[in-house]
């Protein structure tokens, strides 16, 4: 008990400690709030002005270093609500060239927390964005008459070329959901909306800085707080070097004029996308500045959907270009050998089912079958594969094996390109058909998948990637549009090789078939004496209208430099549009220019229009 009495005294130690802590804190507060010179001036609530400094957004160039996107100064008018009392609104509206109505509506918008979630009366709010240099200088002279109004220097995007709108994307003001998702943004900030501006937003944007300025009681800026000791300098964004060849891109856009569809070219050895055309397209310059909203609306309402990047969002039947993948699968699975021949008498006929074909010799081995694009051959191949009960216990197992081959070639899932909005296409699997046919189906039921029809859908990017895989004889690197990010290694995602399930020797057989198609088959138009072109046409049946014209190919045959897919909606035969356009594109890239004869052909195709659409190239205010 004696000990316990001793212990009770310890309450004085503990209570004393609490008292000492509080006293120390009171003294500290006293010095901070009442004595410190540093903070005395700040008793006035407006003493500190914290001004955000915006970093320059990274510039974008093409693979040859040609500057595509850069920054241009623009000026935002900012307002602090608590300070703008007593401004002559009429004078202000006149100086800025706005109406009284607009002024009042804008003020309401700023104050509405739903539209402007970061609103505060005490901080700068965006009043009017992106004044041109002339507008700015006119306003600057009168600025002293409008207390509470400030100029914030910003930079806006400017474009050197009218091409590649889908790839480059654009920047616009952040929406409430962007602010919600990322603490970095505040109302009035810009964010990449589409294309690489969106997918590389975090590297392009850099990091905002802040300077702390001191003001006197009248709000005049007196200088930097402690000589800028606590300022943060903005960190500029990183520059991007795209893998696009802007000349090739421009030619592609020219050739696709008046047509719907897409061209994708890939450098097979690196997976770099050399061009990605989606038609119709638009001039990226219409998305700059204050006209962005108007342009956006106009493009969104266009019935031909120019905002849609068909190269990665369009999902089409690949048609006969898909036969190459079938040949590879049958060879690897041992269903056929290169010398296996199947009969074709104007198509595939079995138990009353007919898949038509055009006229050619019969029976055919594999290489001529690819060259002439024989439907019968590939139907028989799939029929034998799906009917092989020794190798596959059920048709479902055969289907699963087939699907695994397709997936290994990059079909059925997003490839993972560094652009937003990629679609995955469609590769059916056994459960899909079980549901569709209630379990009762066979190789015959699904025979049309062997010729790239039926349920199979690919994006043009996936078809081009198939070309790149064949060019590489069995592997691909995930296609990507950015070659280099300044001061940063490229994501390893875009350097790894993905091998398919098919051995290299079988690829050589298919390459021989594709070469034959150019020499004496469906792709004769693409033949040239400069280099060995390999190709495969496709005429994709379209229940809604004219067939689609498709071409997939690569060149040269050895050490290929370019693999390409041309997809022209409603272009009828593969040889009508796909092959000649593909040939011109390959020539441009490999030779660096078009020959005179090709120039004439290019102009001819530029003027062959399948659709009459208002050419959305340049909006004038």
């Amino acid at each position: 008990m004696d000990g316990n009495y001793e212990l009770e005294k310890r309450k004085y130690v503990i209570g004393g400690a609490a008292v000492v802590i509080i006293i120390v804190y009171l003294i500290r507060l006293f010095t901070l709030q009442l004595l410190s010179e540093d903070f005395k001036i700040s008793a006035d609530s407006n003493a500190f002005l914290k001004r955000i400094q915006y970093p320059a957004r990274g510039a974008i160039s093409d693979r040859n270093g040609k500057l595509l996107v850069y920054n241009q100064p623009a000026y935002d008018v900012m307002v602090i609500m608590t300070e703008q009392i007593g401004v002559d609104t009429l004078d202000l509206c006149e100086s800025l060239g706005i109406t009284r109505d607009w002024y009042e509506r804008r003020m309401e918008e700023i104050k509405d927390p739903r539209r402007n979630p970061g609103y505060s009366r005490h901080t700068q709010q965006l009043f009017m964005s992106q004044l041109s240099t002339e507008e700015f200088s006119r306003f600057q002279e009168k600025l002293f008459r409008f207390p509470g109004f400030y100029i914030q220097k910003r930079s806006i995007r400017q474009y050197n070329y009218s091409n590649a709108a889908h790839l480059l994307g654009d920047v616009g003001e952040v929406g409430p959901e962007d602010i919600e998702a990322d603490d970095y943004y505040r109302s009035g900030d810009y964010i990449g909306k589409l294309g690489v501006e969106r997918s590389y937003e975090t590297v392009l944007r850099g990091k905002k800085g802040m300077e702390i300025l001191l003001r006197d009681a009248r709000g005049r800026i007196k200088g930097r707080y402690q000589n800028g000791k606590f300022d943060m300098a903005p960190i500029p964004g990183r520059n991007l070097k795209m893998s696009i060849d802007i000349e090739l891109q421009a030619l592609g856009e020219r050739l696709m004029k008046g047509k719907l569809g897409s061209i994708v070219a890939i450098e097979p050895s690196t997976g770099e996308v050399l061009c990605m055309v989606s038609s119709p397209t638009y001039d990226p310059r219409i998305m700059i500045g204050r006209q962005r909203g108007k342009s956006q609306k106009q493009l969104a309402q266009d019935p031909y959907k120019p905002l849609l990047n068909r190269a990665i969002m369009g999902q089409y039947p690949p048609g006969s270009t898909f036969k190459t993948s079938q040949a590879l699968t049958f060879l690897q699975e041992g269903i056929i050998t290169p010398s296996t021949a199947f009969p074709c008498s104007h198509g595939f006929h079995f138990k009353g089912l007919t898949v038509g074909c055009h006229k050619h010799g019969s029976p055919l081995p594999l290489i001529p079958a690819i060259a002439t694009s024989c439907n019968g051959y590939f139907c028989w191949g799939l029929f034998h594969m799906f009917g092989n009960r020794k190798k596959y216990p059920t048709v479902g197992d055969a289907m699963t094996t087939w699907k695994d081959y397709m997936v290994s070639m990059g079909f059925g899932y997003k490839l993972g390109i560094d652009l937003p909005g990629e679609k995955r296409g469609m590769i059916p699997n056994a459960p899909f058909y079980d549901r569709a046919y209630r379990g009762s189906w066979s190789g015959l039921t699904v025979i049309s998948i062997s010729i790239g029809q039926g349920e199979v859908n690919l994006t043009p990017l996936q078809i081009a990637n198939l070309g790149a895989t064949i060019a590489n004889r069995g592997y691909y690197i995930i296609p990507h549009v950015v070659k280099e990010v300044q001061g940063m290694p490229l994501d390893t995602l875009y350097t790894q090789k993905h091998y398919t399930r098919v051995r290299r020797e079988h690829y050589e057989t298919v390459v021989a078939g594709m070469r034959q198609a150019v020499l004496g088959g469906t792709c004769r138009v693409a033949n040239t004496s400069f280099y060995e072109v390999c190709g495969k046409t496709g005429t994709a049946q379209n229940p809604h209208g004219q067939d689609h014209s498709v071409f997939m190919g690569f060149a040269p045959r050895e050490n290929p430099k370019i693999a390409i897919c041309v997809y022209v909606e409603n272009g009828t035969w593969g040889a009508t549009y796909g092959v000649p356009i593909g040939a011109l594109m390959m020539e441009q890239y490999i030779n660096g220019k078009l020959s005179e004869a090709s120039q004439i052909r290019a102009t001819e195709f530029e003027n062959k229009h399948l659709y009459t659409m208002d050419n959305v190239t340049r909006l004038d205010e």
Partner: protein
Amino acid sequence: MSAKIKNKKAPSLWKSIDWLTIFIYLVLLALGWMSVCGACYDYDQAGSILDFSTRSGMQIIWIASSLLLALLILMADDRLIESLSYIIYICFLGLLFVTPFLAHDIKGSMSWIKIGSFSIQPAEFAKFGVSLCLAKVMSTYGFDVRNWRDFIICVILIVVPMGLIVMQKETGSALVYSAFFLMLYREGMPGSILFTAISAVVYFVVAVRYADNPLWGVEEISLGSGIVMLLIQLFTVGLIRIYGQGAKILSRRVLLYMLAIDAAAILFARFIYPFNAVWAMAFACGALAIYLFYLSLRDRVLPYCLIALFALGSVGFFYSTHFVLDKVLEPYQRTRIHVLLGLEDDPRGVGYNVIQAKIAIGSGGLEGKGFLNGTQTKLKYVPEQDTDFIFCTVGEEEGFIGCAVVLLLFLSLILRILHLAERQSYTFGRVYGYCVLSIFLFHVFINIGMVLGVTPVIGIPLPFFSYGGSSLWGFTILLFIFLRIDAGRNRQQR
């Protein structure tokens, strides 16, 4: 009749409850709500602070539910609460264990469990569970903290939940549990343990903070090292005086010798030949330790031996801090410690928050700018504006007067709890009371200290002020269980 007898045995709850504490609690809640309003939004339309889509509106829901919770606890039977102590503790251990697996990552912390549209942080609730368990264990018959085996039990009860919380990457919340050692001190843990722990922290902070400042213009001597050596000498002498028998003369003589050696070494370094005088001071400490060993052997006095160990240990600790800091820690960890101690400016990181906090508080002046009129504590200038750095808002909007009121309210709450704890007739109530006190003291000490730039930045909430349901509920439960126990103190039988 029977009712009357019952009343005699246990006076009505409403009479025996401590209304003063409840009053302080309510005032703090009200001030806390005002601060959340000031911190989280800037309103133009009157009444929108009550909008439930804003944090200030949500905080009203938290406050209302806390009051309901408090009422429920007061209606419960304190003996029931006491008897459930172990079960509650074990449940919390289980909850803390599974939390990282259920949690979704919020800013790198894995301590939040999502239930419907709300997230709760079990670490904030576990405090009362640990407090109850400690109180229950320590009130068992024959339990004595001075018995080392019992002491180890207490340490285990504290360290296990701490470890689980560290696994949730909430080091700050885990550190709160070290506050329980203050309670253990009251219950008999040797003061020397507390003293040694605090000295270690002080040595570390001082040595690192002033490592690069020269002492009296002599480049060879680091001011930090010199001060730490002097502190070691003073602490040692102090211990001799307290624990030695009749050691007044001895301690005075030792102190004189020490100061003489220090002064001689520093003067020599200053005027004759510059050398690191700290070595001489360390040497003096070593000599003192040897002398104390000799004394303890000669006079058979054990404390001298322990004091000698303290002196040697302190010197060893001092030299190892530099070794650990320079050689063992990664550069970024070193930077972090330097920033915490104000040695490096890191305007983008922790240092930035502290600077912004100081600007905000400093701009409040004597009377502050008034409710909702703060400008520095709005928007995103100070991160964690309405949680960990909420005191900035008090400083800016209510000024020195408001801050002083809040600090004094916390002080009165803590002292009131101290008084209530001491008047408990049973160990259970007293231990629990001291647990509550320790936790409040720790939170107030660290949270306000970091905002004022005095203590390191450890992310823990300010009781009743910081926005959030978990912490408010946690503190309310903690406090009202104690008030309930206190209200039942006059019962005759247990």
